[in-house]
């Protein structure tokens, strides 16, 4: 291998250098200028995102430990865009933190390193890289969850996340070791060749699956989700629900579709069961939440359940629909979290009941929220509908009509609680309604971007076709 092959890691290297740059700059910047760090970080990451959009050749290095394909690259860009919008939405909040509470750049550093971990995770070619990426993507988030050192809840969230994450990765590791026995190697390609559906491999598969299910927060591995979301800062909650979940879904798909394909007939049923439990439990819990962060936590759990409907397809169609849905889901959830962020930044209110009569005072925000919720609920013509419909098509394609039916029943249930928020914003009027306010520029851009993509992505079919093309070479 020559040095050029390192260019395959272009995005990783670029991100790494951004992290280092930020650390260095922080040392030299004077105290009263620190506020500009935010602009600097946003700017740098914006460039990074832009650069990431350019295509590059596929290939693998380190003897297949690290590989990249069009799909993986595209997915990294999705993550980039997500994180970029996240930054925009949380910029104001960070500004405040840095200026008033003398915090450093650690937020960015941790965030980016976690993202870096995901890069490695999604382009992992063997279990070692996968494991390292997994950990690297998880641990910084735990630190981020505990970012608000002054808040007890924040620390609790940190504890819960780090400990349960450690447990999960421990279990996953054990599973990997079992797969190592069964497959005779930690390289995906080798395992793919050798593995057969023996009890041992089934055991390993299930255990590894649970390790990932923890990150995707499938029931019954989801319990940490709500608590952590509630305790952690909104940006972090949003990051967990969108970026890390997305990445985990992606790698899970790679594992199931390629490495564990010989066990297809087993994990089909596994996915079937988990899809049902996840959708039902997630929805049932979301029903009675009043705190919006918890509410969105459970809604995102339910969404994960829907994603499994795409995975169960096990073909190119499944891959495409899942990626497409994740993409849309990223934007929808970011929009929802963005509104919560904006409002809690202004008023510190995070409860649904606080939103009564919001439309009368802040029509724009309410509209964004409504679109986001409709997209999550899957109401046409916003993008979410198309994502869901295609997921269901994927599942029905394999003949899982009953599963699809139950899923759609869940859509109805979920519609109920999404409408509860709409009800609060539009139907209700209250003299204690949140007064009118104007968000800062970054927030506005962040929200506008999400809304635009929610409106356009669904109707703009070439995007889906593109994804479908890319997902061919995952097989």
């Amino acid at each position, binding site marked *: 291998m020559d040095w050029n092959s390192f260019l395959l890691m272009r995005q990783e290297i670029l991100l790494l250098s951004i992290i280092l740059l930020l650390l260095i700059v922080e040392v030299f910047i004077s105290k009263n200028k620190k506020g500009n760090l935010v602009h600097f970080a946003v700017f740098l990451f914006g460039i990074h995102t832009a650069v990431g959009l350019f295509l590059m050749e596929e290939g693998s290095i380190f003897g297949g430990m690290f590989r990249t394909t069009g799909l993986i690259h595209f997915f990294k860009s999705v993550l980039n865009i997500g994180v970029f919008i996240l930054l925009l939405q949380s910029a104001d909040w960070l500004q405040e933190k840095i200026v008033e509470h003398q915090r450093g750049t650690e937020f960015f550093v941790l965030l980016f390193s976690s993202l870096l971990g995901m890069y490695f995770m999604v382009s992992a070619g063997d279990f070692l890289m996968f494991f390292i990426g997994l950990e690297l993507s998880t641990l910084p988030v*735990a*630190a981020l969850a505990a970012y608000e050192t002054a808040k*007890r*809840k924040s*620390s609790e969230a940190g*504890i819960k996340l780090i*400990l349960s994450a*450690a447990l999960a990765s421990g279990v996953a*590791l054990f599973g990997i070791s079992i797969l190592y026995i069964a497959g005779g190697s930690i390289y995906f390609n080798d395992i793919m060749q050798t593995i057969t559906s023996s009890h041992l491999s089934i055991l390993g598969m299930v255990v590894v699956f649970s390790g990932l299910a923890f990150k995707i927060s499938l029931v019954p591995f989801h319990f940490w989700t709500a608590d952590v979301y509630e305790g952690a800062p909104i940006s972090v909650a949003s990051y967990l629900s969108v970026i890390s979940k997305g990445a985990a879904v992606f790698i899970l798909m790679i594992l199931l579709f390629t490495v564990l394909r010989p066990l297809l007939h087993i994990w089909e049923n596994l996915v079937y069961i988990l899809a049902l439990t996840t959708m039902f439990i997630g929805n049932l819990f979301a029903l009675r939440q009043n705190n919006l962060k918890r509410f969105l936590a459970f809604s995102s759990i339910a969404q994960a359940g829907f994603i499994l409907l795409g995975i169960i397809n096990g073909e190119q169609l499944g891959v495409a629909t899942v990626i497409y849905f994740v993409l849309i889901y990223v934007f929808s959830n970011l929009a929802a979290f963005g509104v919560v962020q904006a409002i809690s930044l202004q008023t510190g209110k995070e409860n649904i009941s606080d939103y009564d009569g919001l439309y009368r005072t802040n029509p724009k925000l309410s509209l964004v929220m409504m679109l986001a919720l409709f997209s999550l609920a899957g109401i046409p013509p916003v993008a979410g509908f198309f994502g869901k419909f295609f997921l269901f098509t994927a599942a029905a394609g394999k003949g899982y009509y009953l599963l699809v039916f139950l899923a759609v029943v869940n859509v109805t249930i979920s519609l109920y609680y999404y409408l509860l928020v709409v009800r609060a914003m539009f139907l209700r009027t209250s003299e204690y309604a949140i007064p009118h306010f104007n968000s800062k520029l970054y927030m506005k851009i962040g929200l506008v971007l999400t809304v635009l993509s929610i409106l356009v992505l669904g109707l703009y079919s070439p995007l889906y076709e593109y994804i479908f093309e890319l997902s061919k070479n995952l097989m």
Partner: protein
Amino acid sequence: MIAGISIYEILTLTTLLFFIGVYGFITRKNLISILISVELIMNASVVNFVIINKYLYPDALQGVIFSIFIIAVAAAETALAIAIIINLYRQIGSVEVDATETMKY
């Protein structure tokens, strides 16, 4: 290769170790000891990897390398966890796991 000990004994041992860790995780009341239990779980896998490598697939060193990485990661994990625990202790003056139940339902 350790004479007279087949892989099965060792795998049994590691499995026991794993479940002891799990047990500890579930029963200990002190966050620190929970952290220790997590270490147990990790180490179970570490041993696993080494053993499997040695007994079953000795021609490549995948398992051994893996175990080294695991140790490193575990260390990082612990450090981070400790840091957060200390931060929690600063606020509520306790490291009991029961103290982390304000958020529920």
